[in-house]
């Protein structure tokens, strides 16, 4: 049967260990590469007041050594065996990966299991990583144009519930207040096998891989799961507009957002298609009408969950966010009006058949493109299992997007992209003395 992925089918085998850890195997023996990907169901939105930045601090702690792999060994073993690795923190999850030559699969699994079983949590490691996080903050936020506005101020303006709006990178005060006991408790609670999904994809043989996974992870004890945090947002009743002076920016930018639909709802699929019509490729409406037509937008980005997520990991409550770097001959208010005129044209005038077909082809092609690397396949499978309980979405998700009709896009656009519920953050270049103290 021809599928939307042009005959492509990513093989999936699911397996659950006795301790509750979910495992997914996906075999492709074309290139001698294997990806080990582990995602934990804990992110910045799980943090408590006074403990901001813990999810991110933890991502750092995970590289500080564990019982049998001392400090530095994680990097050293992966790199000296021809691989690379990283981790990243998100609002709803934290993930880690090793990409290795496929003969080194056991090494990747051993390293992940050793730190899940017995991470080295002590004062020295904590102090050292607190400093690293602070330095990362100086480098990636305090010294970069737009970064503080987008990553810290934007969530505060777009959300009202503290769980959703607080800083992902954390405050220096909270980081300084963190004790070894706090960190140990966070680890025990969230870095448990029953809160993790492990994916092994690439050049593997499944019986052998399964045996290794059982041997390394099988006896790590599960932990009671805490009640999930209440992320509910109060309903929006009026638009918000704020101006943010940025002493490092030289060109103005505006972020525009609307409260988005529930993940995997029909409206979620429709907004994914709307986003493609507005910003997918150079034939998109923003490119043709704002960059070219009005000559007002210089660069644009948009996504369900912008700036932290896209459709693969957007979780409600979330924002459909649009970011426009714009020509200083225009004002932020004018840019909001221009973007909203493009949005209004969708629900008012509809979507042509040829345009919709182009968006579908674009989507199909981008997904096939993405599936080429073992690591990208592993990361999609892991997040679909964690967030949807359904890794097969890697093969079927597209069907839902491609089935969306022009009428459904119109209706969802009108329902969700409501100017009455809009948040806008206008980031303007500022002289150093006008800058906010951060």
């Amino acid at each position, binding site marked *: 049967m021809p599928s939307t992925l042009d005959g492509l089918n990513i093989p999936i085998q699911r397996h659950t260990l006795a301790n509750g850890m979910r495992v997914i195997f996906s075999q*492709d023996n074309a*290139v*001698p590469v294997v990806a080990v990907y582990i995602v934990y169901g804990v992110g910045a939105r799980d943090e408590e007041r006074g403990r901001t930045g813990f999810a991110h601090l933890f991502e750092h702690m995970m590289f500080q050594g564990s019982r049998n792999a001392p400090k530095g060994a994680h990097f050293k073993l992966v790199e*000296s065996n021809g691989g690379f690795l990283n981790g990243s923190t998100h609002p709803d999850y934290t993930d880690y990966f090793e990409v290795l030559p496929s003969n080194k699969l056991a090494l990747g699994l051993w390293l992940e299991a050793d730190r899940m079983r017995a991470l080295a949590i002590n004062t020295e490691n904590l102090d050292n990583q607190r400093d*690293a996080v602070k330095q990362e903050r100086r480098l990636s936020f305090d010294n970069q144009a737009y970064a503080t506005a987008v990553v810290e101020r934007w969530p505060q303006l777009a959300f009202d519930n503290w769980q959703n709006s607080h800083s992902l990178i954390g405050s220096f005060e909270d980081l300084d207040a963190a004790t070894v006991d706090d960190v140990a408790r966070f680890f025990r609670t969230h870095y448990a096998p029953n809160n993790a999904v492990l994916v092994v994809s690439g050049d593997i043989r499944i019986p052998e891989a399964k045996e290794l996974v059982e041997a390394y992870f099988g006896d790590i004890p599960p932990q009671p799961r805490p009640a999930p945090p209440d992320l509910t947002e109060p309903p929006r009743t009026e638009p918000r507009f704020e101006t943010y002076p940025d002493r490092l920016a030289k060109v103005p930018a505006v972020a525009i957002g609307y409260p988005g639909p529930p993940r995997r709802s029909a409206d979620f699929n429709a907004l994914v298609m709307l986003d493609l019509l507005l910003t997918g490729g150079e034939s998109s409406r923003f490119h043709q009408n704002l960059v070219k037509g009005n000559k007002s937008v210089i660069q644009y980005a948009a996504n369900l969950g912008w700036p932290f997520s896209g459709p693969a990991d957007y979780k409600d409550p979330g924002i459909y966010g649009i970011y426009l770097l714009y020509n200083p001959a225009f004002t932020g208010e004018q840019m909001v009006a221009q973007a909203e005129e493009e949005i209004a044209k969708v629900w008012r005038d509809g979507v042509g058949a040829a345009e919709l077909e182009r*968006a579908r082809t674009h989507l199909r092609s981008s997904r096939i493109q993405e599936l080429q690397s073992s690591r990208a396949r592993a990361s999609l499978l892991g997040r679909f299992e964690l967030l949807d309980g359904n890794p097969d979405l890697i093969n079927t998700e597209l069907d839902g997007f491609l089935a969306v009709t022009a009428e459904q896009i119109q209706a969802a656009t009108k329902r969700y992209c409501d100017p009455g519920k809009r948040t806008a953050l206008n980031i303007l270049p500022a002289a*150093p003395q006008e800058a906010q103290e951060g």
Partner: protein
Amino acid sequence: MDLTRPPQTPALPVYKLPPVLETKLDNGLAVLLIQDHRFPMVTARLGFQAGSKYDPPSLPGLSESTATLLSEGTWNRTARQIAEEVNGIGGSISASSSADLLVLGGNALSEYLPKLINLMADVARNASFPEDEVELHKQNRTQELLSQRSDASFLADEKFTELLFAPHPYSRQDPTLESIAALDRLALAGFRDRSLAPSNAVLVLLGALPPPQEALDIVRAEFGSWQAREAPAPPPAEFPEPQRAIVLVNRPGSVQADIRIGRLGVPRHHPDYFPLLVGNSILGGGTSSRLFMNIRERQGFAYDVHSAAQPLQDSGTFAVVTQVRNEVLAEALEALLAEMRQIGSHPVSADELEATANYLSGVFVIRLETQDGLAAQVAAVRLMGLPLAYLENYTTRVRAVTREEIRAAAARYVDPERAAVVVVGDASKIAAQLESIGKVTVEEAK
């Protein structure tokens, strides 16, 4: 099973490049076809010897602007038509320019290969640089440049490249506000006519292709009638002698200091290339490198610290790159310079060498997993004038490097005695610390 020790594993199977069919059209266009049927996509790279080093001195950025504007209109299609047709085949077409090369890249669902080749040929041969598109590009590139100039690391790279290469054209790879203002259709069309010639180009086609004859017929139909022309010679490969210079680019308000220390390196075909590549990786190539372990992990001076040995067609660069807190600048510089001296005066350990050779070999193969990764490597190797066997022999060459070769290469290219030092930061906070290593020239950020 012993869980207390890292597992022992079998040896890695060797990497074999998929078969490459290489041929030349009568007009001189080199064509390489590589079959890869894992994914229903095709990836193309059309590369030209037409990078920024061919820019006239009065118009830096001309190669880059030509690349950007190629797909903004041809004699046959408007920019909008190109965009819609490209989107309609599930594809993308975009060109970019580096110091040596201008590369037009494209991809599409494999069923649309003929259309992709048709679009790429139209863009490469018939770009018309419409007046309104040129004006819009100038307007937006001006804003983008202003934005780039607000970035400390952009300013550091710019000053560093200038110190190393001036007056060779490698010293200016970005446009200036003046050169953007002076750009016009005539200059763009001139660059197209001089440099975008078939004898000056390599076409790599990779993916789920039809049988070779059929694929070649598609290429011939679109590129066969392209007129052969003489392409311009590159600028003479003459570079200044390295010398110690310390430049502080003043950027008031910076909360940290952005540092570059380094000098000229070597191109890929140079006998010192592989020793420098491996030595660079030991010094600052990854998260177990000497710089990372010392500057970040042990001393906590920086979040990011690395070194890079970047080959160019006729030369190369070696640079140590980091950003440190203002108050530790002097200590951090001392530590960086000490590491740079050490690797040129004492052989690396056998363990370091083995681990690093493994690392470079492994990630090299991992990068070839995707069509884009493989096409980029094949195109780069051919355009740099290297044999395709370079790709298959890469891991062997890396593993053949000796400890003494690394020390000797580091003494020649890493030792800081004659290195350029660039620091971008708030002069009022860091100038005094920088003077601890020598005489400093202070310039204002532009």
